[in-house]
């Protein structure tokens, strides 16, 4: 079975979800959105999936539309949370995982979705953080992702603006600030997968097979820490690929990638396991 990089990337995101977790994604995040549905149809069948802008609980959308606030994303849901219900649950600590991206991400998993350059005269005004600057404090775990690692401008030494706090900022650590959530647990990029070490610093755990350590080093703006047992990212199973294609027939996930990344294709060799 052949598959394209965007499909593998989404599966890598999906695998950061554990079964029986309550999981949420922000808007403008098709990869995370598709990943949540893939997880729910494969290894995390008892997760509670909360849609990012409709707050629908465990919907079965006929397709993922290009906007996060569409009725398609409520289809099949027996219940839609109200805005307040979701945010109350998240700030009191009853949501286990959120997916979060950033135009800039630093070594401690702080993210910037507000502006590149000084905010009074930004070079680029980004969209903004939505609910992130409160949710990042109290949600159990964060899965961060970016599809622009290779640009060299995404994983940076220091964010121009911290919209959502990771493990530590100039203001202190999460513990010092009284934050109840665990902060970033994973960072998935188009080059590899990072976790966070005891210092709350990103650490490369897995690379994609067509990526070298030098590629990662050259694209990373902060000190690259590498796990002792670095390995390649496990292949997606055919069940995961099938679930993904069924949930995203319009291919909205592809909008997050450059043409070069979309051109990366792979084939299952012998021994491709099933992760279900």
């Amino acid at each position: 079975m052949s598959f394209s990089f965007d499909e593998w990337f989404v599966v890598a995101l999906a695998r950061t979800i554990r079964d029986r977790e309550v999981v949420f994604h922000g808007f403008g995040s098709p990869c995370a959105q598709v990943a949540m549905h893939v997880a729910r149809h494969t290894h995390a069948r008892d997760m509670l999936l909360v849609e990012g802008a409709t707050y629908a609980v465990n919907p079965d959308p006929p397709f993922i539309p290009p906007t996060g606030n569409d009725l398609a994303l409520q289809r099949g849901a027996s219940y839609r949370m109200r805005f307040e219900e979701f945010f109350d649950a998240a700030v009191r600590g009853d949501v286990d995982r959120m997916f979060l991206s950033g135009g800039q991400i630093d070594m401690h998993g702080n993210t910037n979705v507000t502006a590149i350059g000084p905010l009074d005269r930004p070079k680029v005004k980004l969209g903004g953080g939505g609910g992130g600057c409160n949710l990042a404090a109290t949600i159990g775990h964060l899965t961060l992702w970016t599809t622009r690692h290779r640009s060299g401008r995404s994983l940076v030494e220091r964010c121009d603006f911290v919209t959502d706090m990771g493990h530590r900022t100039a203001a202190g650590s999460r513990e010092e600030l009284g934050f109840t959530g665990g902060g970033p647990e994973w960072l998935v990029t188009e080059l590899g997968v990072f976790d966070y070490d005891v210092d709350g610093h990103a650490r490369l755990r897995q690379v994609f097979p067509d990526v070298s350590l030098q590629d990662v080093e050259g694209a990373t703006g902060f000190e690259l820490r590498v796990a002792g047992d670095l390995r390649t990212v496990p292949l997606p199973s055919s069940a995961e690929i099938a679930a993904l294609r069924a949930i995203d027939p319009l291919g909205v996930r592809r909008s997050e990638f450059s043409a070069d990344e979309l051109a990366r294709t792979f084939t299952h060799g012998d021994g491709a396991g099933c992760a279900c």
Partner: protein
Amino acid sequence: MAFHLDADKRVDLERAAAIVTDGALVALGGGLSARLPMALVRELVRQGRSGLHVVGSAHGMDVDLLVAAGAIDVCEESYVGFEQDFGLAPAYRRAAETGTITIRESCCATILAQLRAAELGLPFMPVRGVKGSDIAGLHPEYGEVTCPFTGETLVAVPPLRPDVALIHAPLGDRHGNIHLDQPYVLDERFAAASRDVVVTVERIVSTEEVVGAGVTIPAHLVTTVAEAPYGAHPTSCYPDYAYDRPHIAQYVRAATAGGAELAGYLDQWVTGTPSEEAYRKAIGEERLAALRTWSASTEAWKELFA
């Protein structure tokens, strides 16, 4: 805030928009590509409103169009953009980068806490997050409070009392009882916390029909109601119509180009259509009818997003 007890609150769109004065603190209802109060936004531009301070959660074309028309001074939304579909909001981005609007970006959960403080008549509400984020630096009005029970220090945020909330809904009656389909986003909270609540509806119907569908915002919170069919276009207003993706793409192209192209868009679709009736006519009956075909089949629905 104070209840509105007039028996008949029906007005035309011009009078509804006139409740928004220059410099007002305006809460925008709906979110992203759904139920944005676009007819009111267009009418505010036609009336030449300026100096607005807008606040809300995650928004798109409503804010961008108001910025493009020079109506906004201060923007306190949590997000303004066209998601991954069309990306950054062009006029908003340009205005922020050239310093012609003040960015006071906020957070959905903070705005919710501030609206609740207003609803409860309390001087502040504590929030657990915000610390560690540079968002706090954009809000000198935030403070700190020490919990008298646990000794924890939390960020304290003041009440948010918009001068006027602008909301678009599928149904309403003459008294101002309003039915919304989910997600309500912050519309209920805006309705309870704002001094005036201006609602446009697809159809003004009998009270029985609104009650049958379910009253989401009660009449006593509503200042005025105006009938504005397709009043959310080009965003969606389910169950009536899906969003008009090609039209939004057309706007984003014009706004990205700026200059004459953006002026051309505004002239063709906003100032050059002196009323919403003219706007609907310019969009075309056929196109508007096509946006209602989403319910025919999954294939028809998908087709609208292709």
